[in-house]
């Protein structure tokens, strides 16, 4: 039934044009048909595909235009949903970054324990022999370590720095081992005998007597 289908499509198009005019508040150009052409006011009329607009369709369109009204929600619902959407929007606006779940905690204060020894004298002495930069890092007793630190990378870096400074201080303060002293003596004797660049003065060699 191609003809029926075409006629139905044409009628549907005619109805659509009529609805366009009605819903836009324009007047439809009466009972248009094959001779007059079909169109809405203010637009180019299309060629009429079939006959006239069905009076029943026209009447029910007018009626539904009046009867099918838009229903508004309650003000209370509108505001409640607006609040909920605002809350959801805030959550969406600030996505959690990597590590953002961490929190600031105070660094636990040390028990004032000296680094060098139980009596604290060694620590003071060692600190006196260190360069200024390392000395500052080693001066744990005089520092207030109760400062906030972010758990994670910052705390790790601080711990490595403290451990490194303590290691340097320990190695600088510790006297050389017997083997090291022997090696230095052999090298100095060799330099004195050959007059090489590492030649030391006599008071230097008497150091081991």
């Amino acid at each position: 039934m191609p003809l029926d289908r075409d006629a139905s499509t044409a009628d549907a198009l005619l109805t659509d044009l009529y609805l366009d005019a009605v819903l836009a508040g324009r007047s439809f150009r009466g009972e248009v048909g094959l001779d007059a052409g079909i169109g809405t006011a203010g637009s180019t009329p299309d060629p009429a595909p079939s006959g006239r607009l069905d009076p029943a369709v026209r009447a029910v369109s007018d009626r539904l235009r009046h009867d099918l009204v838009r229903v508004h929600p309650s003000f209370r619902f509108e505001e409640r949903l607006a609040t909920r959407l605002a809350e959801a929007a805030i959550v969406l606006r600030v996505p959690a970054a990597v590590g953002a779940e961490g929190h600031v905690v105070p660094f636990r204060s040390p028990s004032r324990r000296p680094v060098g020894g139980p009596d604290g004298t060694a620590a003071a002495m060692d600190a006196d022999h260190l360069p200024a930069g390392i000395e500052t890092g080693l001066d744990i007793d005089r520092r207030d370590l109760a400062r906030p630190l972010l758990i994670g990378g910052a705390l790790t870096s601080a711990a490595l720095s403290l451990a490194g400074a303590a290691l340097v201080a320990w190695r600088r303060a510790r006297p050389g081992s017997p083997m090291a002293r022997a090696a230095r003596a052999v090298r100095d004797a060799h330099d004195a005998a050959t007059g090489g660049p590492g030649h030391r003065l006599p008071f230097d060699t008497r150091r081991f007597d």
Partner: protein
Amino acid sequence: MVRPVFGRVSVTRRAAPARADRAARVAHLDRDRALVEAAQLDPTRFDALYRRYLAQVYSYAYYELGDHHDAEDATERTFLAALTNLSRFEERARPADGEGASTFRVWLFQIARNTIANQRRGRRRRPAAPLDAAALVADPLDLEGRAAVRDEAAAAWNAVGRLPADRRRALVLRFVEEMSTAEIAGILGRSEGAVRVLIHRALRTVARDLGEGDGARGSRR
């Protein structure tokens, strides 16, 4: 009249180089484009879109579900889903779609349609006749006329409610939301021609149901 086209893109069109077409799309100013872009950058600015379309979405849900509480529930789900997925929304309006084109509205109503469908599947309910809302049409000072108009409005609502789902949706979107055929086609996932036929047949069915066109009530208004 230039008709916006929101239907599915044909295979031929999809296969063609899309650079010029994309540029044309970008150049076109969607009616809601500024609001959508602002909300995509800052979700807290979604409120403007919400205020603009709340009544439309709620009304559509009410006509579909026939209950205020169900309509509120569907409306809430629709807007929450729209807000959550707004970053994925892509404007597809073109200059040929016309001045008032808004693909955001089509997109929003697609969400509403799916939400309502899920809700209906869960409750297995037929839409009830919204008689209370029909009373809003009447003049509050004209008691006798109000009763008559209310009855007629209720009859019209009942007739629409008895339509098959697709016809009912198309009719509600056309008359209540005053959408174009192209927008309805985008929401229902059909061609414009199919939507025209759908609406035409729906009107004929309602007319037959209400007895319109037989001279009894055709000249009522």
